[in-house]
């Protein structure tokens, strides 16, 4: 139920309530964007027809650096 899928905003309607999200697998859907501040080109997480968060690259890199740190660590 709490599944949320990332996609890219490719179009925002005039009243800024809805946007078209491209999921990158050929599907595009209209989603409600009133819970986030978005621009065209942003990646968002979509749940039950709503964008619930904007994803950004800096934060994604943080996860990767956590991994690097762990893998480089000596076993205890």
């Amino acid at each position, binding site marked *: *139920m*709490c*599944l*949320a899928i990332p996609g890219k905003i490719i179009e925002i309607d005039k009243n800024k309530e809805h946007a078209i999200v491209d999921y990158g697998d050929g599907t595009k859907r209209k989603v*409600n964007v*009133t*819970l*986030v*501040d978005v621009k065209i080109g942003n990646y968002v*997480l979509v*749940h*039950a*027809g*709503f964008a*619930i*968060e904007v*994803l*950004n690259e800096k*934060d*994604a890199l*943080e*996860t*990767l650096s*956590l*991994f690097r740190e*762990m*893998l480089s*660590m000596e*076993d*205890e």
Partner: protein
Amino acid sequence: MFSLRDKQIAKQVISKIKKMNVNLKFMHVCGTHQDTLVKHGLDALLKDCGIEIIQGPGCPVCVTTPREIEEMLMLAKKGKTVATFGDMIRVPGETQSLQNIRTEGYDVRTIYGIEDAVKIAKENKDKDVVFMAVGFETTTPTTASVLLKNPPSNFSILCCHRTVPNALKAILDMGEVKLNGLIEPGHVSTIIGTKPYEFISKDYDVPQVITGFEPLDLLMSIWMLVKQIKQGNAHVQNEYARAVHKNGNTKAKEAIDEVFESVDMKWRGFSVIPQSGLMLREKFEKYDARKKYENELAELKDKEFVEPKGCKCGELLRGLLYPKDCPLFGKQCKPGSPVGPCMVSIEGSCNIEYRYSKK
């Protein structure tokens, strides 16, 4: 750059965890986590490393109570158009599910999100449309957002929204299962941020990691939990920083606050859990199906509802059992003929176990 499904890295992480030489039990509260754990066989690999992982009350459809389902059935039978998510429609009430009564001609609609239900109301002014609003903090802001936009007066909701942190507290307070750490749900946390979990680490000395949904997210999070334990720490860490910010989604939290207030609520398998549910604030009461249709629901008011006979969902949701411990699993109870909600929902532990054990 590596992928969050990289098998080589997964192996390295698992071997690191194994060398830490532990014997621990963790709980997560999210069907998507369970799906990842079982689908990729991580649950078995981790068991080999001395780590047992159990799904707690982490499936909004599963924790919905028999009463709530009966309320929806009653509203449909009294001529309302009822709408909710596909999984919810198949959960059996005392004798029937919403899906069953649809075949009898009652107006039951399967929808993808609340906006679809509002659309039905707008297009059918002669119908009273009731949306069964289930879901944790991930879903609640979608309901709030719609109610803030003045939906039509023939639209209302049966509010079944629940909130995660106090359910975790309830599990720890009951003490039926000894937990060494909690794997916190990523998308609930996307909305609420990291703060609402902090009291748990402080009061119960339990480490927590907010976790994403890829195999490596889960392995990483488990490693982080084990590390905290080894170092004698208990705090909230955020593994899923790419989607969870410290303060969560402020806009979404404000919408929830404006529309809902916290109430004590019963969860399937539990008694009433203090401050673990939401109800509409007075300002929004015209959208509250329980108030709007008080007369239609009156005969349910003092009735007691029981969970399906022989079903172990209650124990599963409290983290006491595994699906295969239920004598009905795979026999009387299968996804095509579910006895309890944990076999209906694709996020339910019985459904997940059944799906992947057949492959």
